[in-house]
């Protein structure tokens, strides 16, 4: 019980951080000191100062403003990616687990195939070949990442099928569609949500990695991976261009990882209680 309250407090604290990040991302347009797209060549590559806290880039754009706007881009990309893969994966897993047979076989063979291959290599190829833009990057990572959720949802569904209340629903003549929506889905959803929450940090880094390679967001979009790529070329003269966006990724990913872990912890305790 004591552990539960401790876990819950931690979760509340990290949730507060997460809300803070989301708020900062949403209200970025009102928070930024300068226009992140506003190029002023006379301010090119200024070192951090009180006027420009994080310095300016090659085009004289304020780095702090770009990082805040980049948070919006990164979070939007990451959250939509995680929602897409967990949603699609869960549906496929549910269908596979409930209906079995040929549908199951086809989906699981595809999932096996993805497991037997380093996904990020394929994602680089897909994003690169389709042409770098935000949509294609999300698509590329979605193609290689949904299988994890499909497998998870399938195994959870198979376990649920053995339970008495499902047998009761079947014997009382409940339609299959209703069993899936009313009984299966609410039971597997918590595990899927926890897994998705713990995946946010990883996905954010993979998206940034693709952007860093030039296969993600394109200039002048403020995006952290892309900003690091631009900063890399000026590592000698303007190290702040790579220090700040990287630190931003580190902090945001750490917070989401901590939040995901603490969410898992309270869900686990609840299950035991």
């Amino acid at each position, binding site marked *: 019980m004591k552990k539960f309250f401790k876990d819950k407090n931690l979760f509340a604290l990290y949730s507060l951080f997460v809300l803070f990040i989301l708020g900062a991302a949403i209200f970025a347009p009102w928070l930024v000191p300068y226009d992140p797209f506003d190029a002023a060549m006379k301010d090119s590559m200024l070192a951090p100062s009180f006027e420009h806290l994080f310095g300016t880039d090659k085009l004289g754009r304020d780095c702090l403003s770009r990082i805040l706007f980049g948070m919006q881009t990164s979070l939007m990309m990451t959250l939509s990616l995680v929602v897409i893969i967990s949603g699609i994966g869960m549906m496929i897993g549910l269908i596979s687990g409930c209906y079995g047979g040929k549908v199951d076989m086809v989906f699981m063979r595809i999932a096996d195939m993805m497991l037997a291959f380093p996904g990020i290599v394929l994602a680089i190829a897909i994003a690169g*070949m389709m042409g770098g833009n935000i949509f294609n990057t999300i698509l590329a990572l979605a193609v290689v990442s949904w299988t994890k959720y499909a497998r998870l949802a399938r195994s959870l569904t198979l376990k649920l099928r053995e339970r008495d209340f499902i047998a009761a629903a079947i014997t009382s003549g409940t339609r299959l569609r209703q069993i899936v929506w009313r009984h299966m889905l609410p039971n597997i959803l918590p595990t899927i949500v926890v897994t998705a929450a713990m995946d946010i940090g990883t996905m954010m880094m993979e998206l940034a*990695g693709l952007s860093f390679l030039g296969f993600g967001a394109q200039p002048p979009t403020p995006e952290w991976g892309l900003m690091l790529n631009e900063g*890399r070329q000026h*590592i000698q003269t303007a190290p702040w261009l790579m220090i700040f966006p990287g630190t931003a990724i580190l902090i945001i990913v750490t917070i989401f990882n901590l939040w995901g872990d603490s969410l898992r912890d309270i869900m686990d305790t609840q299950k035991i209680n």
Partner: protein
Amino acid sequence: MKKKEIMHRVIQLMITLVGVTFLTFCLTYLSPGDPVEMLLEVGDTIVSQETIAETRAQLGLDKPFHVQYIRWITGIAHGDMGLSYSAKMPVADRLWQCLPGTLSLAVSAIIIMLLISVPCGIISAVYRNHKIDYFIRGLSFLGISMPSFWVGLILLYIFGLKLGLFPIAGGVVSLDRIVLPAVTLAIAMSAKYTRQVRTAVLEELGQDYVVGARTRGIPMRKILWHHVLPNACLPLITLLGLSIGWLLGGVAVIEMVFSWPGLGKMAVHAIEMRDYPLVQGFVLWIALLYMGINLLVDISYTYLDPRLKKGGVQ
């Protein structure tokens, strides 16, 4: 693993290969750029439509999809992976050229990773919930949350630029140039692997035989070295095989950061140049490498775990 199982795995491997190559081949169709124009347009030269059509026919790019795919697959079966447009040489030769770079980097990263994560994981498990455990776990948490390419940039900045300990210009494979990229990859990998070592050792420490040995008065050190570690090795080898998958992908980004002449950097350039045969060849090679390594891992199990040799108890 029995012969039959190995055969089964090899067949599965072939199916995966066909699927993955098919998918990459599809990409060339969805891709917006035209490789023929990329190939012919050097600088501002204007190429006539006839030349473009001629080259297209020469490369076989005017044929329907399935014809191209079958032609490519039969080519590979004969050891011919086609011609790279951008490097103007056979794809296989180009891949062989870049393989040593990636392999040397990957092997050194794995060695450094093992040197970091195995001791740290064991210490963390043995001194569970002590200060040192919290410290190691905190570090590995931090490591997981850092993008590897950023770690690479920071190391490059500190050790290459500020301290001048290592050359910053890449381009050739040499001992002093491999240190920074290898350490970068190792840091990212050991953050994950340390946790896995810790979990595996903890699991073994909780087994009944450990309690049994303790009650018979066998010193903890002896139990650890003679019983716990050999047993914990088995799951760790599987995980090592899996993390090689991450390594093969992660290496591309790190090679770009350090301009390291390997497969990853080659692939990124090939994608930028829309050099389809080279990209397809790269994906095929990575698939082969990864699946081959994991097959070897599974086969090695038979030798490491005598219980599996007779296909008996599990």
